[in-house]
């Protein structure tokens, strides 16, 4: 099953490379040179990897990787649940930023995450949400004068 997913990922990379190559058709040489120099080896290597996986090469579970590795000691169903949970929280924060803007999304997210996912107490959750508001306003609003988007909801309501 894992190898089937690895095969799918490799094929997606190969298809994305072919799509990128097709996009360069008709471009002047200065524009297409570098993308093609990068994309042609990418597609070739992705196809080699696909061929190796199709020939039934074992997953390289025991081979060391030079940087961080995924923890495989956790039960797969638990790992999937946690991954989906994290993706949902990130998607929720992104939706909140789009809808109500950073000013409300930042403390709201800190408070909701600490109470919901972190199961922290009310006092700590409220205190850290206030710290987040203060730090955010002091650094990004007062000091850096960051132009923050107001949020679609406020725009729709005419504020």
């Amino acid at each position: 099953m894992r190898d089937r997913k690895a095969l799918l990922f490799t094929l997606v990379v190969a298809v994305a490379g072919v799509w990128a190559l097709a996009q360069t058709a008709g471009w002047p040489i200065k524009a297409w040179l570098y993308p093609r120099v990068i994309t042609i080896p990418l597609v070739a290597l992705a196809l080699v990897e696909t061929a190796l996986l199709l020939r039934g090469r074992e997953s390289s579970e025991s081979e060391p990787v030079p940087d961080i590795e995924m923890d495989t000691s956790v039960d797969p169903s638990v790992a999937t649940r946690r991954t989906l949970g994290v993706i949902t929280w990130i998607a929720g924060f992104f939706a909140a930023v789009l809808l109500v803007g950073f000013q409300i999304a930042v403390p709201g997210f800190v408070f909701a995450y600490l109470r919901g996912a972190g199961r922290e107490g009310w006092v700590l959750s409220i205190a850290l949400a206030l710290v987040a508001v203060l730090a955010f306003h002091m650094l990004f609003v007062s000091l850096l004068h960051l132009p923050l988007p107001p949020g679609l909801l406020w725009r729709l309501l005419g504020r």
Partner: protein
Amino acid sequence: MAASLIFLNQLARLTAVRGAILIPFLVILTFLGSYTNNNNIGDIVVMLAFGALGYLMVRFRWPRAPLVLGLVLGTIAERYLWISVARYGGAWLGRPIVLLLLALTLGVVISALLQARRASGGPKTSEAAAAEGAGAR
């Protein structure tokens, strides 16, 4: 760098903070960091897309360092590739330093392949086979 060195001990203490407390602040900082690049929400979408790609690369054990290096050095590489092509055409590939670098690259790739083959227990030498046979007896 100076600030990092001065606050090294304080920064190291962050590793002792519970993940549940750190995560919301890290998510906010990554969102704000990507947004402040061009003050554009689109940059957050790009960050999320590359985050998803990074997750899949970790999951399927693809090395991430070459991708990061490519992204960091890409602009410089593109500029000098074009300068080389504009100056020499295809003949830049035959220049001595280029040939040397290509040979070094090939050497690294071949040595990595040989090491991987040796680690996975490639073809045994006759001495090794004889030693194994003697051990079995």
